[in-house]
């Protein structure tokens, strides 16, 4: 087990910079998720930690040792690839035992370790099979088994679940989390799925365009997103954003949208007149008397809750409510916004104010 430190790491392909000085601290035994939209450089960063990609600037340390110049085989890491990358000509057992065989460990030890990993992942019956004879979920587990057998300092996962169907993905999410609790090994996990990030991580690193936007515990990011990007990325359905400015009415600060709707604020948040973006999550909007009138455009009932897409003046806004609604599209309803959950971002810098 070890901590991983990424300091001012840069990556350039030729002259094209794709990672611009990233800092990440990963504590020993921590489960850190790198999350961000496609192309933001998550895989590149992970591959630099693994040693599969040269580091153009800055340092990566594993267990206090700078590993920039150390080849992957000597970094004592295990990686699970998005495509699984199982050796197709080796059986499940051979795939899992490969790293030990390479090290020249005795047969009995390899067998014992493979068996232990197979038990953890429930692969015992499949040990004699070839990858082509396995389902997607089983291949995924073999790929994890191959990593576990290594007993490495750090696990690196690159979108290991993205090839699985929705149901299996949820099941594997739980399995990986259990695995982490059981082994306690440091994990760096890449995904573009914010739900995976929220549910699995001890700490989330949100990336965009080769930069770190914010680092924090899942719920901290949810409660206090540092900018519009993080606010919109974390949480599902995404936060509502309404452009407008701050005004004062009856000694109270309020928000006035560009189309003239007035939304409540709790306490003074910014200078009056300042152009801002008002953010409110759908789950913090309620329906009931005393709210703001909005016109319903679409309703999406899922059984447990209903998502309401509505228009507040010119602005689109959606809300999630527990009740089953009887209104129809085109009718009005009253949206009650809880001002304590409103987020205010500077319209220019898009940073939280």
């Amino acid at each position, binding site marked *: 087990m070890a901590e991983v430190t990424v300091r001012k790491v840069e990556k350039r392909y030729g002259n094209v910079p794709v990672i611009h000085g990233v800092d990440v601290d990963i504590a020993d035994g921590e489960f850190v998720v790198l999350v961000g939209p496609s192309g933001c450089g998550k895989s590149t960063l992970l591959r630099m930690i693994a040693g*599969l990609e040269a580091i153009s600037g800055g340092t990566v340390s594993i267990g206090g040792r700078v590993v920039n110049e150390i080849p992957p*085989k000597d970094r004592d*890491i295990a990686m699970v690839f998005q*495509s699984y990358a199982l050796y*197709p*000509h080796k059986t499940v057992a051979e795939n899992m035992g*490969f790293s030990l065989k390479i090290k020249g460990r005795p047969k009995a030890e390899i067998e014992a370790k493979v068996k232990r990993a197979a038990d953890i992942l429930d692969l015992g019956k499949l040990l004699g099979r070839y990858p*082509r004879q396995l389902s*997607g979920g089983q291949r995924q587990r073999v790929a994890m088994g191959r990593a576990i057998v290594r007993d490495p300092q750090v696990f690196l996962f690159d979108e290991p679940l993205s090839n699985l169907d929705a149901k299996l993905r949820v099941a594997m999410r739980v399995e990986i989390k259990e695995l982490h609790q059981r082994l306690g090994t440091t994990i760096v996990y890449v995904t573009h799925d914010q739900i995976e990030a929220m549910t699995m991580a001890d700490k989330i690193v949100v990336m965009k365009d080769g930069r770190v936007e914010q680092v924090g515990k899942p719920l901290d990011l949810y409660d206090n997103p540092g900018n519009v990007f993080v606010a919109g990325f974390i949480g599902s359905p995404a936060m509502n954003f309404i452009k407008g400015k701050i005004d004062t009415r009856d000694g109270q600060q309020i928000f006035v949208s560009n189309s003239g709707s007035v939304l409540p604020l709790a306490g003074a948040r910014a200078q009056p007149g300042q152009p801002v973006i008002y953010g409110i999550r759908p789950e913090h909007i309620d329906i009931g008397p005393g709210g703001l009138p909005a016109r319903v455009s679409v309703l999406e009932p899922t059984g447990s809750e209903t998502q309401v897409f509505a228009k507040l003046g010119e602005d689109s806004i959606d809300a999630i409510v527990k009740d089953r609604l009887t209104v129809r599209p085109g009718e009005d309803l009253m949206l009650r916004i809880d001002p304590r959950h409103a987020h205010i971002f500077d319209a220019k810098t898009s940073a939280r104010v």
Partner: protein
Amino acid sequence: MPNERPWLTVLLWVVLSIATLFPIYWLFVISVKPAVELFSTPSLFLDTIYWKNYVKVIGDDTLRRYMMNSIIISSGNAVLVTVLAFMACYALSRYDLAGKENIFFWTITNRMAPAAVFLLPFFLLFTQVFAIGDWKLYDTRIGMILLYCTFNLPFAIWTLRPTIDGIPKELDEAATVDGATTWQVITEVIFPLARPGLAVTLILTWVFAWNEFLLAATLTSFNARTITTGLSEYVTTTGTEWGTMASISIITLIPALIIFSVVQRHIVAGLTFGAVKE
């Protein structure tokens, strides 16, 4: 699609097989008849078998040497070429070599000129340049093995490249992370998966060297003379020894058949199935 007229397919294959195998049968018939009979009563049927031709051929020291030369030169060349091409393709496929597509194309150009164009330069090289004292590359087995690399290596690189390119790079990466050295990646992952391509390359380059006549005839005289070239010595100004030639030809087919049957087992499709999910 179910085959509605299976007999038609069977008939087609029977006809094709007869057309292909008939000359070989004919050759065999000639090889087991005394010369007199060949011309007095030409017949395609075998009533008696006359083994003298074979006895003569097998008992002939010179022919045995030619046969041995052929086997050593073809096999040596095929193995050398396949190993070199394998490593070349791995480098071309996995490394960012400056101008690697140009290197690749340049290799292929070696195959663009007819072999005869190389005749004179090679003759001079083999007799004048690669000569130390009395020793010359001319008429040596090693000379022939190296010579055939000129033609077989580009061909082999070309045949093998798609195979190596087709092995997902993630497998190299997975093996590297698993602790493998580059050499272990090659032997443990790439080689087993490239086996079908290697087998094809081995057979085709072997056959080229086995059948090659022009260069062997010019660059060997006795010591390294191959059976293909030796065969032509039976066409003389006083006549052609048909029976002997036919029996040598039949014997020449045997090593080829052995190579094919041994190597062919490795030509299987779909080895990389299940490696990565695209």
